[in-house]
C-alpha cells in the first residue's frame, strides 16, 4: 500500500512545465466534481475519463507506469467499495463507485507524475501554510530516501548474520532496526541544526 515508487516521470511535457499551483487546483477541482456526481450519473464518469486520458496521452506519459501505480492502489479501493455491495445495494452502484474512486486515484497519479514535491512546497508557502509545517515537510522529503537507504543497509547487515528467519525473531530485529534508525535520525537532526545555524537560520 505504501510503496517507495517515486512516481515522478522525468519528462518535459506541457503538463510538466505547467504551474504547480494550477495543477494542484485543477486536480482538486476534478476530484471534487467527480465525487459530487450522483450515483449512476455515467455521462459524468465518461467525461472525466476522456479528459484524464487525453491529458495523460498528450503529456506523453509512460502508460505502463501509470497503470501499475493505479493497480497497486486499487486493492484498498475495492475493499471499501465492497461494503455497500455487501449490504445488497446493487452491482451497478459498486461498479460506479469503483469507477469514481479510480478516476480520483488516477488524477492524483497524474499530478504526482508531473509535479515536483519541491514545487508543491512553494505553492503551500504561498498559501501561507505555517513555516514550521513547511520546514517539516521539506526536511522529511529531503531525508526520506536517505533514511530508506540507511534502513536497507541496516537490514542487509542483519540479514547477513541471520540464518533462521523465525517470525518472532524478525519482529524483534525489526524493532531493533527502527530504534537504531531513530537514534541515527535524531543525531543527524542535531547536525543539520548546526548546518542551518551555520548559514544564518533564525528559526
Amino acid at each position, binding site marked *: *500500500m*505504501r*510503496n517507495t515508487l517515486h*512516481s515522478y516521470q522525468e519528462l518535459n511535457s506541457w503538463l510538466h512545465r505547467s504551474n504547480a499551483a494550477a495543477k494542484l487546483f485543477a486536480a482538486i477541482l476534478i*476530484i*471534487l466534481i*467527480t*465525487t459530487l456526481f450522483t450515483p449512476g450519473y455515467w455521462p459524468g464518469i465518461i467525461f472525466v475519463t476522456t479528459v484524464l486520458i487525453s491529458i495523460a496521452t498528450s503529456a506523453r506519459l509512460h502508460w505502463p507506469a501509470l497503470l501499475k501505480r493505479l493497480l497497486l*492502489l486499487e486493492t*484498498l479501493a475495492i475493499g*471499501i467499495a465492497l*461494503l*455497500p455491495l*455487501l*449490504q445488497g445495494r446493487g452491482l451497478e452502484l459498486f461498479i460506479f463507485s469503483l469507477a469514481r*474512486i479510480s478516476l*480520483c*486515484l488516477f488524477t*492524483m*497519479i497524474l*499530478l*504526482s507524475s508531473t509535479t515536483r*514535491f519541491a514545487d*508543491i512546497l512553494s505553492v503551500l508557502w504561498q498559501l501561507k501554510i*505555517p513555516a*514550521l*509545517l513547511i*520546514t*517539516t*515537510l*521539506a*526536511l*522529511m*522529503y529531503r*531525508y*526520506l530516501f536517505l*533514511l*530508506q537507504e540507511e*534502513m536497507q543497509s541496516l537490514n542487509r547487515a542483519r540479514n547477513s548474520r541471520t540464518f533462521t528467519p523465525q*517470525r518472532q525473531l*524478525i*519482529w524483534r530485529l*525489526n*524493532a*531493533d*532496526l*527502527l*530504534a*537504531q534508525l*531513530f*537514534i541515527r*535520525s*535524531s543525531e*543527524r*537532526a*542535531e547536525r*543539520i*541544526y548546526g548546518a*542551518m545555524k551555520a548559514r544564518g537560520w533564525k*528559526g
Partner: protein
Amino acid sequence: MHIPDGFLSLPVATGTAVLAIAGLAIAIRDVKNNLPEKKVPLLGLAAAFIFAAQMLNFPVAAGTSGHLTGATLATVLLGPSAAVIVISAVLILQCLMFADGGITALGANIFNLAVVVPVVSYVIYRFIIGFGTSSNAEPDLFKKLLAILIAAWISIVAASIFCAFELALSNAAALQLVLPAMSGVHMVIGLGEAAITAFVIANIVRLRPDLLGSSSYVNNTADNERSFFALGLIVSLALAIFVSPFASSSPDGLEFVAEQLGFIASATNLLTQAPLPDYSVPGIESLMIDSLLVGLIGTLSAFVFAWFFARWLSAPNT
C-alpha cells in the same frame, strides 16, 4: 485506514477538515512556543523516519505482513503536539505524491491519525503512568511499556471508530456494518501496533535513554498543558458530533448505542473464537448485557496480555 476520495460526503469532509486544521493550528502554536529551537529539524527527520518505518514488513501469517502506523510511537518520542505535526506531514506527502489517501479526505485522515491517535495515546499513557508515581519520580520501565502497549492499542481502535463513523455519516456504508468491521479489524491490528511500538521504545531506552524521559515531553509548562487540553477538546467535540445523529434518530438512545456495541462485541467474538459461543454467557438473557460483557472480557484479555508482554519486555536481559 487512509480513506480514499469518493467515500466521504461534502459535509463530513469539510467538517473533519475544519477539525484537522484546528488541531494542527493548536499543535503548531504549541511547538513554536515550547519546543527548543534545536529540536525543530527533528520534526522533519522524525517524519521521514515514520514514513520509512511504515514500509517495514512485519510477517504475520502465510505470506501476509503487518505495518507500523507509528503515531503512538511519535507521541511517546516527541510529545503529542509534535506528533500531530509529524504525522500530518507524513499524511500530506502520502496524499499528494503517493495517492495514498484522498485529497478530499485529507482532513479526515489527518484528524483520525494525526490528532485522535496522539491525543488518545497521550491521555492513556499519562493516566497509566500516573498510577502510584509521585510527580517528581521517573516511572519505571515496566510501567512505561505497559502504558505504551495499552495506549497504542486503544488509540488505533479509537481512530478506526472515528473512521467508521465518518464513513457511516457519509452514507458510504451502514454503521451496523462498518463499525464492527473496522473496529474489529483494528483491534487485531492494534495488537501488532502496540507490540512493535513497545519493542522499539524498549530498544531506544536500552541504547539512548536520554532520548526518552520527561524531557521528551517538552517543557511541561502550563501553556503546553493548555494546548493539550484544547486538542482533547477537539477530539471530544468530534465524538459528540459523530455519535449524536445516530443517537438522536432513535427513540431510546441508550439502547441504540448498546445495540451498536453488541455488533462490536460480535466482531471481536468472531476473531477470538471465544469460549463464549453465540456470544451469550449462559444464564444471562438480555442481549445488551451479553454484548457489553463480551466486549469487556475481550478488552480485559487484551489488557492482561499487555501486562505480561510489558513485563517480558522490561526484563533486564531482553
